[in-house]
């Protein structure tokens, strides 16, 4: 009936299992398998990249979470630390020189040979940082009865030696050079260690010979006396005195010669041979402790890596985030609600929409310029404060919040709106009672993503002066402060090697912040969603 007899019949494959059909089917399946394989490769690559990133930062940062401190048992001599009297806590607290003198006296007593020249004194005093005595100064200022008592004081070891003890900065090898024989002075004013009869001597000889031409430091140690190797003879060592008690010339020693071969030439490192020797001695005496670097979380920035902390940046970041959230989230949500639910659809709203999308793509540094021009110059707000930083970042993420919120509002089914309106709810009631709660999880996710972007933003903050050196933890949003990503930038550009692990440590702190924010987002989402 339907088939006209003259119509040409459609050519159908004789069967669905024909050879051509099977071939096509095979190709289709193969294409699907290929596509899945590509997906797996892509995901695997992403995971690998993430692992490499996290691992490299973690291994870098690991050493920054501990630090070495030198223990001093100091008698708090009143004349030195409180020359103006015990009842002057402010003067005691700021008397860095006085406390430092105590530390220096102790170092001189520990290594008496360093008292001879100014150069040596300077070298030994560099074991700790001048400002490392500040905590004890504050403690004594608070408890004046400690004056003239002996107090156990811990001072941070200088960052270079800290790094040395953690195994960084130098390439070194410790070995025994042999059994010491007679130590004598030779005609050139050098020391000659003679009659070294030991099988270990040959191994030492070849180890030194391997480093020929690389200018290594070879430190030799007999008892507590340290020498620097000058040359090796078949049966003796020519060395020069480095530090420690003067050797008894002509005497026969029965102790082994410990050798420390530092492959990095002295000119390429920031720690001297003597400082290495002293640090080794102090370490052996148990006077160097490796402790958790709590200063990283409690102290503000410092020019000395061993004293520097991220506290100011952490607090600054928190203040900045609070200002950003308080500004961008309510304004963004209200703008989105208005545009999505109330605004008439006309040229003007179209223009606004296009511009919001464009703003989201504007480079962040432009917002920094805007902030500098408007907040600092026009409104005369102070530089380097979280209030301004937060406002600039708020402007930066506002388009993101609006776009995310609009998408969330758009995804609420229109039937909910008509249901509410049909019941006689006003538009505002329909939005605030029904649409907004349903859109809340989406809005929240968008807001948190925007906050995360703001947290990691550096460029606009540089322009409003948040790169300033801040050595006090801010307590209000209108005090000078810095933020974590800016601190990373600053520390990364620091000259000393010790800044490297410190930088990684701050990166980890920043990542922890981000993970916490995302966790908060997920949990809030769950809570909101469960209500429905």
């Amino acid at each position, binding site marked *: 009936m339907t088939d006209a007899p003259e119509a040409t019949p459609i050519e159908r494959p004789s069967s669905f299992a024909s050879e051509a059909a099977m071939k096509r089917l095979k190709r289709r399946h193969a294409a699907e398998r290929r596509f899945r394989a590509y997906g797996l490769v892509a995901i695997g690559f992403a995971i690998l990249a993430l692992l490499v990133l996290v691992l490299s930062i973690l291994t870098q940062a690991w050493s920054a979470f501990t630090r070495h401190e030198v223990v001093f048992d100091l008698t708090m001599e009143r004349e030195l630390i409180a020359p103006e009297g015990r009842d002057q806590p402010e003067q005691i607290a700021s008397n860095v020189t006085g406390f430092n003198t105590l530390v220096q006296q102790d170092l001189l007593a520990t290594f008496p040979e360093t008292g001879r020249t100014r150069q040596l004194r300077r070298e030994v005093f560099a074991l700790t940082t001048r400002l490392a005595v500040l905590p004890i100064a504050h403690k004594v200022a608070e408890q004046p009865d400690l004056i003239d008592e002996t107090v156990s004081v811990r001072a941070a070891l200088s960052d270079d030696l800290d790094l040395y003890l953690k195994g960084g900065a130098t390439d070194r090898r410790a070995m025994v050079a042999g059994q010491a024989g007679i130590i004598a002075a030779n005609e050139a004013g050098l020391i000659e260690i003679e009659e070294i009869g030991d099988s270990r001597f040959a191994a030492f000889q070849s180890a030194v010979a391997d480093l020929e031409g690389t200018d290594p430091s070879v430190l030799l140690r007999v008892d507590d006396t340290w020498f620097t190797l000058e040359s090796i003879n078949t049966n003796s060592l020519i060395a020069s005195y480095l530090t420690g008690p003067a050797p008894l010339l002509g005497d026969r020693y029965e102790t082994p010669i410990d050798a420390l071969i530092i492959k990095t030439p002295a000119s390429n490192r920031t720690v001297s041979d003597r400082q290495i020797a002293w640090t080794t001695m102090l370490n052996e005496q148990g006077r160097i402790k490796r402790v958790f670097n709590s200063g990283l979380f409690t102290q503000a920035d410092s020019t000395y890596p061993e004293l520097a902390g991220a506290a100011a940046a952490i607090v600054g970041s928190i203040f900045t985030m609070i200002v950003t959230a308080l500004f961008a989230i309510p304004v963004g949500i209200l703008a989105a609600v208005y545009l999505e639910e109330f605004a008439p*659809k006309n040229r003007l709203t179209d223009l606004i929409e296009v511009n919001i999308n464009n703003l989201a793509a504007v480079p962040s540094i432009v917002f920094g310029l805007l902030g500098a021009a408007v907040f600092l110059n026009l409104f005369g707000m102070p530089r380097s404060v979280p209030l301004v930083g937060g406002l600039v970042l708020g402007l930066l993420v506002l388009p993101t919040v609006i776009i995310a919120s609009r998408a969330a509002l758009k995804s609420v089914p229109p*039937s909910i709106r008509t249901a*509410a309106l*049909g*019941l006689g709810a*006003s538009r505002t009631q329909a939005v605030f*009672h029904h649409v907004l709660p349903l859109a809340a999880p989406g809005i929240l996710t968008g807001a948190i993503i925007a906050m995360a972007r703001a947290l990691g933003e550096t460029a606009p903050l540089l322009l409003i002066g948040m790169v300033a050196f801040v050595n006090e933890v801010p307590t209000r949003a209108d005090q000078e402060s810095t933020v974590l990503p800016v601190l990373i930038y600053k520390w990364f550009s620091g000259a000393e090697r010790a800044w490297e692990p410190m930088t990684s440590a701050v990166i980890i702190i920043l990542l922890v912040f981000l993970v916490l924010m995302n966790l908060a987002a997920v949990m809030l989402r769950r809570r909101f969603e469960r209500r429905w």
Partner: protein
Amino acid sequence: MLDKTETSQPESAPSDKDTKIDCRHIDVFYGEKQAIFDISMPIRDRSVTAFIGPSGCGKSTFLRCMNRMNDTIDGARVEGEIIMDGADINDPTVDPVLLRSRVGMVFQKPNPFPKSIFDNIAYGARIHGLASSKSDLENIVETSLVRAGLWDEVKDRLASPGTGLSGGQQQRLCIARAIAVNPEVILMDEPCSALDPIATARIEELIDELREQYCLVIVTHSMQQAARVSQNTAFFHLGKLIEMGETEMMFTNPSNQRTQDYITGRFG
């Protein structure tokens, strides 16, 4: 009915004192496009009026004029008078929010709020301040659910979400929600099109019961449904009212050829 000659409406049901809503010369435009052409009709109180016609003929649009839901659509424009209890509801002084509390609406797809059954019913009463106390509110919820024939099925789980009910139950929940505001008119836009025959029968029963107290207007695609539940039927085609009259007359002896064709399934 009016002194104007009615070209597009060959026959209208007589306008009498039972008229709840009197629509006069309604034109509806969506932007430039005209969707409704000069429709006039009276709608009787305490009875069911059914709108039938092929898809896109303007039945839903016309229905939505009666509680001004077209206001919420951008570019929609309604012209003409809709007199309800002696006042034009399109008058600028009439608050659409207030109007919608008098003219409730049930939609094609059940659209309960994603809240508890209790909150679904209580919402309208809350925003209109109909309940002065908690027990008042509970009373309203119970009465509405009883009237919608849903009470026995949900009385033990008023706190569970309304979206967890079956399709038919959800639609009755929506009817109960509309009743809870105590409206005078209930508009139903294809209330059974998403339901199975058993749920449909249940709703039709309910519509028949509600007729005692409310003025009901129902848009439907099912001729049988219109025949079963309505007292008056209006046939729309291409935005025009072709014929309106008592349901029995319309289905047994339509005066217009197109009505005849549509009812007998020859077009549409």
